[in-house]
């Protein structure tokens, strides 16, 4: 066990030194008095406990707990009255120490044998670290909220504006995005089937599809708003145009994916076009179709929100972003972005789960890295 940590001994050593040196350095200025660690005895003790745990604990789980304790020690230090900035050298040094320790804990987990928790824990820890540093830097350097709000301010905005955010979500996601996603994928897939039946059409459409991938299709948003009005219909139209070609290109690739031998086998059974399509070519095409669906989920959300910049009723995520940005109330903007991020990730995640259910047989799932 000692051996596994040996590689990180230098890093852990540096981290410990950072924290220990910080005890002699100032934490900021309060009413022209320089403030030190000893004015925060509770935080000081907590930090010592955490440091001890990180230095000697043998098991990664114990080190994780010690890390959380050490990180918790720093949280009460920046207060509204304390002036920090560059004068709080002790604080920043301790923060660096905690961050380095976090890295070593992540490295410990990364070196462990593969288990279910490991793959979720490490990115989670990394994300928490980023949020932690974000909060510390914004508060410590007194970054104006106009430029970048703290994570806690954003959380507060989400809580306060929950009703508005829910309305926006309904307008943008549940109406425009879902309708556009469904319609666009359906039309794209139907066109692919048509092109499969008529090779002439396929040879004509495929080069156009590749051309279209280079074109910023989102530019038709103003035109769609002009044609379909401010409501969700125009956003759906934009989405349909944006996701049509990715679905078409992927569906065609999928329909052509069946190998020669399997097609010959179907022919030897005297199977009809429909039977071959249903029993062989469509299952073979599923990995490609899901690839397109995942790409399109992101495109659909982006298309809806950007299209709302060009005109929308008094609700909608894009509308909210542009209006609140113009009013410089950025915490609401970030709150909307957070909601959009969660919605986008959840949408993608659901598709990924469906993909795993329907294409469990594909080699990419069976290969353990």
């Amino acid at each position, binding site marked *: 066990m000692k051996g596994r940590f040996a590689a990180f001994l230098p890093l852990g050593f540096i981290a410990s030194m950072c924290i220990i040196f910080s005890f002699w350095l100032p934490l900021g200025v309060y009413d022209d008095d320089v403030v030190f660690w000893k004015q925060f005895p509770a935080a000081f003790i907590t930090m010592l406990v955490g440091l001890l745990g990180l230095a000697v604990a043998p098991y990664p789980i114990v080190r994780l707990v010690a890390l959380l304790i050490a990180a918790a020690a720093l949280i009460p230090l920046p207060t509204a009255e304390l002036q920090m900035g560059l004068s709080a050298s002790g604080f920043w040094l301790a923060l660096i120490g905690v961050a380095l320790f976090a890295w070593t804990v992540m*490295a410990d987990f*990364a070196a462990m044998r593969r288990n279910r928790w490991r793959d979720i824990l*490490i990115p989670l820890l990394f994300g928490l670290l980023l949020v932690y540093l974000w909060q510390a830097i914004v508060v410590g350097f007194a970054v104006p909220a106009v430029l970048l709000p703290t994570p806690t301010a954003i959380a507060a905005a989400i809580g306060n504006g929950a009703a508005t955010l829910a309305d926006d979500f309904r307008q943008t996601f549940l109406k425009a995005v879902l309708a556009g996603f469904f319609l666009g994928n359906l039309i794209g897939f139907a066109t692919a089937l048509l092109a499969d039946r008529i090779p002439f059409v396929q040879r*004509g459409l495929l080069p156009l599809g590749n051309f279209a991938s280079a074109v*910023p299709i989102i530019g038709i948003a103003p*035109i769609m708003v002009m044609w379909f009005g401010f409501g969700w219909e125009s956003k759906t139209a934009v989405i349909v145009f944006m996701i049509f070609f990715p679905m078409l290109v992927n569906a065609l690739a999928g329909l052509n994916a069946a190998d020669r031998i399997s097609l010959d086998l179907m022919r030897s059974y005297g199977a009809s076009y429909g039977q071959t399509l249903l029993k062989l070519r469509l299952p073979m095409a599923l990995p490609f179709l899901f690839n397109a669906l995942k790409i399109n989920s992101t495109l659909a959300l982006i298309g809806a929100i950007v299209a709302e910049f060009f005109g929308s009723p008094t609700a909608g995520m894009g509308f909210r*972003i*542009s209006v609140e940005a*113009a009013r410089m109330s950025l915490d609401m903007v970030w709150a909307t972005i957070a909601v959009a991020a969660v919605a986008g990730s959840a949408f993608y995640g659901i598709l990924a789960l469906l993909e795993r259910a329907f294409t469990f047989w594909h080699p990419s799932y069976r290969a353990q890295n």
Partner: protein
Amino acid sequence: MTTDVMGAVFSPRGRTLPVVTVVAAILVLWYLLAIALNWSQVEAKLSAGGTPPAVSDVVAGTWAMDRPVLPAPHQVIAEFWKTTVEVSPSSKRSLVYHAWITASATMLGFAFGVILGMLLAAGIVHVRTLDRSLMPWIIASQTVPILAIAPMIIVILGSIGMVGLVPKAIISMYLCFFPVTIGMVKGLRSPDPLQIDLMRTYSATAWQVFWKLRMPASVPFLFASMKVAIAISLVGTIVGELPTGASGGIGARLLTGSYYGQTIQIWSALLMAAILGSVLVYAMGGIERLTLRRMGSRA
């Protein structure tokens, strides 16, 4: 010679004829749609005199409106011609001027994004902790519609004094580092384990393995993702130009066109955007072919 050309166009596997046919079909549909969408306005205007207008007059009118619902192709081309060839490239009315603003921000953002992507990929492949902690977030980052907040980022950076090329380039960089990272990670990991073992028998350092084996093996993946990246970079730049603070660029043209109801202007800006996108991707493809040929590929 002509028989070869004829064979290429009309052969059963040829692509020229189908593409031309599909494009022609689209143009025909476009003209018909223009008639349908512009009909009511033109008919109302021509009937103002009291006498019902002839069908041919209405049809001709639908293809020659000032502010049509759907401009006819020749109108778009005429406007395009007017704002590119007939105007000096340094004037603010020239589409070439706007295209250049957009293109320069695109290429700058693309360059940043490629460098960032390659650095990240190299880090992820060599440092296991980075792989386990950062990779999931990189993938998750793409489900966040960053494009949607691009205008806001421009506004914020503008309020602290950063205007012009750099903010747009930053947005483009964020958008295009992802495909480059993913592609490069795949590419850097693509060499056969046999090859890696061979390098170990030579006691090669990680640095040597990187430059002699992994980098060359990843070139095809790099170019594939760079073509995607430059298209996305263009989209990012255009959306970044949407806030009213932007003074130039294709996105700004789209916005002013939509504010003033100048539909033909919007369509010609879109045409320029399409041309710009194709030129960039095509140029990237050309560089790819040259590079691969110099590296001995048979394609």
